[in-house]
């Protein structure tokens, strides 16, 4: 099992450009999450999904859109990149069970994005 994978690993954008980050998991997890991590800020939730076809906003959703068309994939889009979106982006997934709060999140390796 590959676990959680993210594509690409690194990317440099110019202000105003768009891009899509791909997260894929092969663990058949229902929940998927996108976080951004900035120095001194910890992990902040951007958007998340509790199942195929569903998405919800997290703490810092502005400037981002997401889609979950397939259970194993969760896409994060930046329509018009800004320097404030320079960050490391982590995707995570979690299994849903009756006591799902008991289940840990599995993180991908991250995508380092720089917006000039």
């Amino acid at each position, binding site marked *: 099992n590959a676990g959680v994978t993210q594509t690409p690993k690194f990317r440099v954008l110019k202000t105003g450009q768009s891009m899509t980050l791909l997260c894929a998991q092969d663990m058949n997890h229902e929940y998927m999450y996108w976080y951004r991590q900035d120095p*001194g800020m910890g992990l902040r*939730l951007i958007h998340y999904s509790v199942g195929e076809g569903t998405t919800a906003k*997290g703490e810092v959703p502005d400037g981002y859109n997401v889609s979950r068309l397939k259970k194993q994939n969760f896409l994060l889009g930046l329509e018009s990149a800004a320097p404030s979106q320079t960050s490391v982006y*982590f995707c995570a997934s979690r299994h849903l069970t009756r006591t799902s*709060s008991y*289940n840990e*999140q599995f*993180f991908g*390796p*991250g995508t380092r994005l720089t917006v000039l």
Partner: protein
Amino acid sequence: QQPVQSPQAVILREGEDAVINCSSSKALYSVHWYRQKHGEAPVFLMILLKGGEQKGHEKISASFNEKKQQSSLYLTASQLSYSGTYFCGTAFTGTASKLTFGTGTRLQVTL
């Protein structure tokens, strides 16, 4: 509603103990602990649920005080491999599907 972690940073010699605290201003349903090494993804350590259940690694212990809305992570007989940044993630009743993470505690273990 971001939990507050303390201390922000700590340096230990190998074999020493450390305690990392996580406090919330809101009633907690569960607390998750993760460790992140530089340049890597966070890795799961521990989950503590309201009511006393917990799940995690054998060599790491933690407590959850529901009344005080606090959790503490206990690292005993620290090893060099314990170095990294520790994050607590908190879940609240009604929003248990998502976590709010603290800003982290940087731990460095030296010889």
